């Protein structure tokens, strides 16, 4: 007896596709809560030190390239748009469109990472990476180094999450190519979309906190 498509789509532990869909979506939301707490620790540390050293954090922030940061913000927001469009395409069963939008998201995400790499290498050449090679001639150099610890820590952790996100999307592209994503089973793309949007939102918080402090001093 031929196996129906919905039976193929259903994992053995679930009773029906609805349960499977609900479980996967809830699972991703729960995971995102853990991510909020993970980044939250860094945000808490940032808040503490910014309140103690407001001037130094302003100085440190002005060392960050607002042009590149703004560009990256635009890139990432656009990638969330293409991601949302990809999910829609998956729901509608439009395979070519799905792959195109996923690819666009991957490209934009990679562009983001490329610009970040550019920023990091600038900092490296200016001896602004915290650690033994750190050099800063202005006042409050210790606290500026502390700011940069948070800059690298927070954007670095974010970048790691972006890399993972790009990897997940590449897997989605392969799955879509093989016809695995159908209107009955588009949940993987939807769940990947949740993750991608979350990573975007984290950046929306990071950008002003790191790039826009005391901008016009």
């Amino acid at each position, binding site marked *: 007896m031929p196996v129906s498509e919905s039976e193929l789509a259903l994992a*053995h*532990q*679930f*009773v029906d596709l609805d*349960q499977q869909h*609900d*479980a996967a979506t*809830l*699972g991703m939301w*729960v*995971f995102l*809560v*853990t*991510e909020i*707490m*993970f*980044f*939250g*620790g*860094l945000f*808490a*540390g940032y808040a*503490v*030190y910014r309140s*103690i*050293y407001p001037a130094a954090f302003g100085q440190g922030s002005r060392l960050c390239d607002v042009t590149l940061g703004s560009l990256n913000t635009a890139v990432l927001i656009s990638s969330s748009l293409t991601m949302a469009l990809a999910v829609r395409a998956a729901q509608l069963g439009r395979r070519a469109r799905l792959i195109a939008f996923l690819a666009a998201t991957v490209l934009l995400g990679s562009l983001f990472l490329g610009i970040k790499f550019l920023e990091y290498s600038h900092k490296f050449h200016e001896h602004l990476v*915290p*650690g*033994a090679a750190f050099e800063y001639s202005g006042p409050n150099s*210790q*606290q500026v*180094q*502390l700011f940069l*610890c948070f800059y690298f*820590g927070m954007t670095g952790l974010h970048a790691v999450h972006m890399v993972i996100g790009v990897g997940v999307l590449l897997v989605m592209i392969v799955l879509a190519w093989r016809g695995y994503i159908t209107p009955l089973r588009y949940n993987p793309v939807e769940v990947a979309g949740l993750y991608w949007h979350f990573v975007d939102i984290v950046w929306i918080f990071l950008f002003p906190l790191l790039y826009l402090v005391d901008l016009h001093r």
Partner: protein
Amino acid sequence: MNTTLLEPREETGRNYLNADYSIRSWLLTTDHKRIAILYLVAITFLFFVGGAFAGLMRLNLLTPQGALVSAETYNKLFTMHGLIMIFFFLIPSIPAVLGNFLVPMMIGARDVAFPRLNLLSWYLFITGSLLAMVSALSGGVDTGWTFYTPYSTTYSNSYVVTMAAGVFITGFSSILTGMNFIVTIHTMRAPGLTWFRLPLFLWSLYATSAIFILGTPVIAISLLLLGLERIFGVGIFNPKLGGDPLLFQHLFWFYSHPAVYVMILPGMGVISEVVPCFARKRIFGYNFVAFSSVAIALIGFLVWGHHMFVSGQSIYAGMVFSFLSFLVAVPSAIKAFNWTATLYKGAITYHTPMLYALGFLGLFTIGGLTGLFLATLAVDVHVHDTYFVIAHFHYIMVGGAVMAFLGGIHFWWPKISGRLYPEAWARLSAVVIFLGFNLTFFPQFILGYLGMPRRYHSYPPEFQVLHVMSTAGSSILGVGYLIPLVYLLWSLRYGQAAGPNPWGAKGLEWQTPSPPPTENFERTPVVTEEAYAYTGEELSAGL
């Protein structure tokens, strides 16, 4: 119980254990029951490693000079005893072993929501534990399990980063377990199994999972920052470079306090299963016990500063944390009273799980009451960082959590293994453990108020008598733990075959053969009555 009974597959004898004997089928399993066994093996090994470290510590403390090991070695022993017991034994114990085995069965499901993530969580646990062992074998860590800065970041010459990495990775194992339990309990309950018909074990695991989700990432980031500081020499927690050592303490305790509720809530869940069964009575105050688990988890996130009353934290912050710490004690008290009330007008038998539960009730009560001393600001000033604290938390974690774990292992052993353990030996070891435990830890309350500080390799001579008593107790306790290891393993081969429900207990898991088949239930059961629906007519346990 009015559930759709499945046809037990006694004729074929196929169950989750004998479905496939190959190593590959075990190491690549996605069956929650096999994953539970994998965890059981790992944590049992780690428990005895951690216990050996404790044994060496207690032997060293027989004499005031601490002549058995050097100060440096002693410092590594207490650090690694704490790290192994907390992160690699207690935190996973009940959730990853009993929880993994029972959660799907108790809700009438075939497996957890994400079986492959479940297997991944075990591999992450093994990876983290291996890193911890590497750190130990390379020379160990001597920072105390609390890793306070700047000692751990700048001054310690031990294998801090390796150990921190091990704990970091193991944390993700907890997160995945928590995710799996929350989603499974939310979305995969059998028809008719409403929230207020759930066994209380599941309420407590749900609350525990919430803590896993909300708390574990914060210790992950704390350890990450610690590692970065140690490797790159930056100054996030180093005052000489503008950092604040107290920031580390806040971040650390924000997780590590809720972590202690992770360690006790599942144990409380086990007690809520065992007491009704062996008293043959529904639990007294179901709603209150259920809500108290949630209350403990929530309020437990608000009290971390009670570890920092003398740290240099503001005294007003101290007052807030003290107040909230008293609040969190109330739900625990409610549970203790409800369990006791469940005994009233019961028909009680003294099977081993019930002995462990009764022991838990007494020892957890003492542990919890002594917590009040620590929540009281002015008294904590005197006993903070003394043996009083050590006694308090061992009463809860060993007298409470470990006894609950052992009680649960014995209770569900027939289901897990298909065998009965030898009751006489089991009762004997429960009693030996109870006596050995009290002799080990009660003198420590006295030592603490006398002023004996913690983490001391040597001490003033007037404390010796109490230390000798404690060490004597610890040898008895050690023997007490070895006996079950022997007879439980023995029972796997020679134990009497257990039927589906040797205790006559309520609960969906008892409606399956022992051991259960891989898919648990042939057809999803339908639930029409509440939890612990004893009518008093049932045969007593063990008949």
